């Protein structure tokens, strides 16, 4: 790729969100807004290599998109009856469109971006569509980039985005920011979309390494943007905190041979401490907004306990147990109960942990491979090695994940060295 196309690509990634958002306010439809913005981009790719990058690339793109939006409006109205009133209205609409564009040129309107975020994450669209559309119109990623990140063919991803836009149009989703209770509800969708993007990159075990890393970076960027757009919402700060704290451990998560290194064994000097600081600051914001006992805030607080511990041994497990107690009330899931049992085991000894684990009533948990894995771990610490090995063997058969299998097999091998069965 030539230098100038890389620069155009960079400019596009910087400008596209606000461009689409401003146009969408006028067209009231994301799909059309995105197409018009894309058209402007194509023109820039033709003209800028010859004329040079304009001093204000955002304004240039907005002007180009404005011309196309007026054409689109004109074409749409040509299909209507050629009544004098219609003709006059057409002129008025063009004027309105022109004015709106001019204003959008002069001031960046944050509300438009917020509207765009809520619309792209609308619950009427299937979750995978919301993710793809968000990465496309807010992230400014190309369809091939998104396809590579999720390991699907480009055509599939293109269809997914297309269907998402069509769903929004058919459902007549209004291009606006919700308020009150509706805002809270819709915000949950936005936060879920961002956290899912983050997890896709964070927990990936296959696929192009750099593309997966790009996903966590993108999620972090989206999280930071949301904090600017919704500064009074505690869970927005909390989600950013959680993502910063989790990704701060990235460099320590892989061993020399690319093998996974779990939290207790990580070299903490490789943690990104500036990022930890950012995460803790964001958590404090959430707590100052009285959101300390909410879903993401509690998870972030648990992550912060780990981040503050200089060594694994210094981890404040008692506090983590307390946080899980509250989290269980907010989100009574078996997984949370499982994680709590692990924490109880660390805080009060393996016997207490086993008691907590076996007290979990959710039957579905028994089919989750982490259950025997955790159980085996606790039994091993209690010296009940025969039972422990059986549990680990059961866990190995229950997981398809190769990395998990390797970790469990290694653990089993270590146990068998001391007490073979």
């Amino acid at each position, binding site marked *: 790729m030539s*230098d100038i196309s*890389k*620069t155009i*690509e*960079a*400019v596009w*990634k*910087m400008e596209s969100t606000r461009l689409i958002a401003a146009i969408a306010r006028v067209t009231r439809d994301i799909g059309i807004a995105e197409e018009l913005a894309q058209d402007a981009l194509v023109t820039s790719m033709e003209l800028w290599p010859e004329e040079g990058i304009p001093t204000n*690339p955002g304004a240039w793109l907005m002007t180009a998109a404005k011309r196309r939006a007026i054409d689109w409006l004109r074409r749409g109205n040509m299909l209507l009856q050629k009544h004098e009133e219609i003709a006059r209205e057409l002129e008025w609409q063009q004027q309105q469109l022109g004015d709106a564009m001019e204003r959008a040129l002069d001031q*960046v309107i*944050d509300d438009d971006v917020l509207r765009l975020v809520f619309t792209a994450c609308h619950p009427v669209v299937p979750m995978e569509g919301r993710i793809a559309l968000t990465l496309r119109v807010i992230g400014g990623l190309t369809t091939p980039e998104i396809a590579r990140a999720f390991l699907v063919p480009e055509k599939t991803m293109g269809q997914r985005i297309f269907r998402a836009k069509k769903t929004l149009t058919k459902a007549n989703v209004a291009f606006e920011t919700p308020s009150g209770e509706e805002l809270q509800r819709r915000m949950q969708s936005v936060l879920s979309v961002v956290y899912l993007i983050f997890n896709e990159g964070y927990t990936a075990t296959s696929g192009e390494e750099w593309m997966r890393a*790009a996903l966590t*970076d993108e999620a*972090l*960027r*989206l*999280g*930071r*943007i949301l904090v*600017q757009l919704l500064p009074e919402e505690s869970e927005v700060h909390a989600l950013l905190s959680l993502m910063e704290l989790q990704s701060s451990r990235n*460099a320590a998560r892989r061993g*020399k041979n690319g093998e996974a290194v779990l939290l207790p064994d990580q*070299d*903490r*000097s*490789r*943690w990104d*401490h*500036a990022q*930890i*600081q*950012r995460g803790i600051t964001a958590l404090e914001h959430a707590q100052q907004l009285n959101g300390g006992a909410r879903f993401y805030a509690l998870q972030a607080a648990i992550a912060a306990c780990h981040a503050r511990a*200089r060594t694994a041994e210094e981890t404040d497990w008692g506090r983590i147990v307390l946080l899980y107690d509250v989290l269980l009330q907010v989100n009574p899931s078996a997984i949370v109960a499982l994680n709590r049992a692990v924490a109880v085991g660390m805080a009060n000894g393996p016997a207490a942990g086993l008691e907590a684990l076996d007290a979990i009533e959710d039957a579905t948990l028994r089919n989750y491979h982490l259950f025997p894995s955790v159980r085996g771990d606790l039994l091993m610490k209690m010296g009940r090695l025969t039972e422990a090995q059986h549990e680990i063997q059961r866990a190995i058969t229950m997981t398809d994940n190769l990395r998990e299998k390797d970790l469990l097999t290694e653990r089993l091998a270590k146990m068998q060295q001391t007490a073979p069965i």
Partner: protein
Amino acid sequence: MRFMMIVIPKGYESAAPDATPSAEAVAKMMEYNKALQKAGVLLGLDGLHPPSTGARISFSNGHVTVTDGPFPEAKEVIGGYWMIQVRSREEAIEWAKRAPMGDNELIEVRQVQEMSDFPEDVQKAAEGFKHPANA
């Protein structure tokens, strides 16, 4: 990818110890910083007191010399920096182009080294460093 945008302001090499920027300059800078924040790319920023308040420590043949500022022979001095997270070198350059700099001022854009950029023996040497934040 992380980049540092290093500000090399003209005239800072001879600025008085109590030099402060004008209110207008600060306002423009705040606008720019806000733009970086809104785009979700800003990780951190700092301004530095002028070189007249600083000190230089030079090394030569096992000998260490301390010199108090200002440093008349220095043509370029650092005024401050932004740390940003962007998707490419080109994006970092585009952001630098938009910074509110005066005439003949300079921003140098440099990518931050990540540990994974280094060969294994260098990584090994850096292992076990107890970061002050965790002390």
